[in-house]
């Protein structure tokens, strides 16, 4: 794919991000719930003046269209605004948490693929056998249970009972990791910190299983059905006729071709994993973006929700783009 096309596609993300932000902006201001009320809590006295002052600080006393104008003009300058409750710029809040979310998404994707690939290939090769049914049933197990429930059960078994893996957090406090990118495993490798690598890996496993097991089913079934289709194609029959061994046929010819539809699904799942992890993040006290957004929704922290949703929209567009790039790589016949 040519670079120009990639840039073009990235630019196409802008109207989507903007549209998403405006929808959230209008939606949040039309619905009940006053951020100032929530901020003040119960303690002490709150004077009318104090409430008014906070309102005007947040521009909540102005008509919606004026607020929207202010928001858009800030946005044009690249300013996402400041969080109501956290007294910090939204961009820095999101920036601090994004690496944790990305790390978890990739951990989950890895676990998902680790389960999906053997299952998908085996069940296609042994279609309708007991193995096929068993393994597909197992693959579907992950998608059939609420992730928080799976997470808590994993914690109780592997952390509380067996003491194999930690309950919560991203890394041990005394691992002495020097952060570079915020992706702890990558940072451990970059700084050559072995204990930190082991520690962050151990912390990543359980949340990745809780989140990634749902991906396994989706990927496995796509892989299985595309493999089934390909294994019957003339192309594979030809390879067989040429006397290639079954393993070679499957691994070399069929799987590569089956990867094309699989990659599409995987790409979409990356978006889902990045935007659907708030529950697993809460269960494992994973300091990521999802938890931050849910908290912001409950606190009516308008700027934070707007900013985060724009980030999600960007991730979604970017994931689609990556899928398309991979597509052309796997199948050079396709032009964008």
């Amino acid at each position, binding site marked *: 794919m040519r670079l120009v096309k990639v840039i073009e596609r990235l630019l196409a993300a802008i109207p989507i991000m903007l549209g998403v932000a405006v929808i959230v902006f209008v939606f949040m201001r039309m619905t*009940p719930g006053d951020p100032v009320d*929530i901020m003040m809590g119960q303690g002490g006295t709150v004077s009318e003046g104090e409430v008014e002052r906070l309102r005007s600080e947040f521009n909540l006393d102005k008509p919606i269209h004026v607020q929207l104008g202010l928001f858009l003009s800030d946005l044009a300058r690249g300013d996402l605004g400041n969080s109501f409750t956290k007294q910090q710029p939204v961009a820095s809040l999101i920036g601090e948490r994004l690496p944790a979310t990305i790390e978890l998404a990739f951990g989950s994707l890895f676990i998902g693929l680790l389960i999906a690939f053997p299952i998908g290939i085996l069940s296609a090769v042994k279609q309708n056998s007991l193995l096929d049914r068993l393994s597909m049933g197992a693959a579907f197990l992950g998608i059939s249970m609420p992730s928080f429930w799976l997470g808590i059960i994993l914690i109780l078994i592997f952390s509380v009972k067996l003491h194999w893996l930690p309950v919560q957090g991203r890394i041990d406090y005394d691992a002495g990791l020097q952060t570079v990118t915020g992706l702890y495993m990558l940072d451990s490798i970059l700084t050559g910190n072995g204990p930190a690598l082991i520690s962050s890996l151990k912390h990543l496993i359980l949340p990745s299983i809780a989140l990634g097991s749902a991906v396994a089913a989706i990927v496995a079934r796509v892989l299985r059905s595309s493999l089934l289709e390909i294994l019957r194609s003339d192309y594979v029959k030809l390879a067989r006729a040429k006397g290639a061994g079954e393993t070679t046929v499957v691994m070399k010819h069929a799987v590569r071709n089956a990867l094309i539809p699989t990659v599409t699904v995987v790409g979409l799942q990356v978006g889902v994993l990045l935007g659907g992890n708030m529950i697993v993040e*809460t269960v494992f*006290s994973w300091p990521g973006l999802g938890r931050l957004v849910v908290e912001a929704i409950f606190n009516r922290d308008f700027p934070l929700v707007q900013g985060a949703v724009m980030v999600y929209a960007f991730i979604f567009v970017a994931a689609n783009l990556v899928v398309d790039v991979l597509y052309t790589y796997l199948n050079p016949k396709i032009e964008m």
Partner: protein
Amino acid sequence: MRTYRLLLIAILLGVTLTLSACATPTPQVVKETVVVKETVVVKEEVQVEVTKVVEKEVEKVVEVTATPVPGRQTLIVGLAGIPDSFDPADHRSRLSETVLRNMFDGLVTRDTTSGVHLELAESATLVDPTTYEFKLRQGVKFHDGSEMTADDVVFTFNRIIQENMIEYPDPHTSPRKGLIAPLASVEKVDDYTVRFILSAPWPPAMQMFVHQQIVPKAYLESVGTQGFVAHPIGVGPFKFVEGQLDDQIVMERFADYWGGAPDLGPSGPACVSTAIFRVIPEASTRVAALLAGEVDIIQAVPPDLVDVLAQTPGIVVKTAAGTQPKWMELNVNQAPLDNKLVRQALNHLIDKELIIEHLYGGRAAALPGALSPFNNFADPSLQPYPYNPERAAELLAEAGIADSDGDGKYEWNGAPWAFVVDSLEEHRALAEAVVAQLQEAGIDAQLRLWEYSVVKPLLQAGERSAYLDDWGDSAFDPVGHMEAKWHGVEAGSPYGRGNFSGYNNARVNELIKAGETETDVDARHALYNEAQALIYDEAPAVFLILPEEVEASSARVQNWEPASDSRVNLHDVCLQ
């Protein structure tokens, strides 16, 4: 095929069984609390105006210095929520203070059982009804080595009470201003003396000064608020190392700590070398982290797990009096709830003792009216409304509500008596139990859970009938609490910031207002007692319960006590 299904069931059952296996720890006799009593020191009353109803005799462990013991010297606390800020002047959340109190000290502090004590102030004098004079301790060092003087105190309070003093991220006024609203100005007398000028006499002043912590003027002026929240500095027993508010906050022992409130606990530097606050909002995860030995202290133990934890070897459960009384406010402007008899009847229909025994495992108190029984001005002569369905039936009959067709349900105005009880997710269990008891009694009550920000406008518009919630009371003083909940709203709608019943009694209003500025303790008691008696009788709410604060720690943690205001004082805590 059968193999397949059997295997699947086997897997699932395996999960279940493993769970149930790890669910039942072998019961063992373990002492619930570990309190080492060496010397008993009777605390002397230091406060000027502030008195505190002391629940029990104050017994204190006093050591000359808290000597660190070998072993892992890192103490990890599992927090139940997310702090808002590293700036003691820029938040309005209890949890932020919980953390910040370990890095910052105030002029005064509070102990759960014995009230307000001097901290950075050496003495406090009420010069006249509206002027406090504080003498500061000398030689108190900030974490950067500079000494705390009157300038820092004046700066700290001006930063709170003056407009737009916090410049990051946008210039704004401290959200804590409202907590010390009567404070008009702060003056430096000399390097170690400051005067606080109030706009009117303010009896709970000392209780409220507990919630403000001193920040270093010079440091803040040089790095600004942005620099300050990136690396906060105070005079507290721990200094900031690193941290992110919604992940973990790491602090280490401040070797030059001035010692801490002389009345309370051991003095000298903190016992543990490193203290970490970890945010673990999910209760089941918090408990699991404690069981797995990843954290040493956890907040907010779910009532159902108290017994499990207490029976687990190596785990200690401790409680403190709660500060979040719960009640169901009744809309006094809506028939038939506008009738006092009906409201009294509802109070008689809720079996608080049953709820306390079964839902809270006995770890709650029934509310004897408008104030928490632990409030300094709670009237001890008031007893909670007893559970008495017969009395309720009489009262209801008097108000024209009776089971006229004998179907076991109350009728009012010719139709079954029905209303909706509104509440929030956090009170789900209690609300479900209350509604079930109302239904049991023959009232067609339905439960509706809301998000606070959504239901609040409806409450303030007087559109709801019954609302079950709590209202914090951590200062142990009626001010703020009484005014918000039971004082009539003068302007506009009869419903206010915290007054969702629309209750408005001229005499009660008068009493509450008088209590706010009355400086004579006995006279103040008299005022509040009269107000409480009136509110008790008129019952603008069903007075429910006050749950205890339940916290748990590993048995390695020594000298730790949970606090009512959820403060976690790590200065005194040691690890074994």
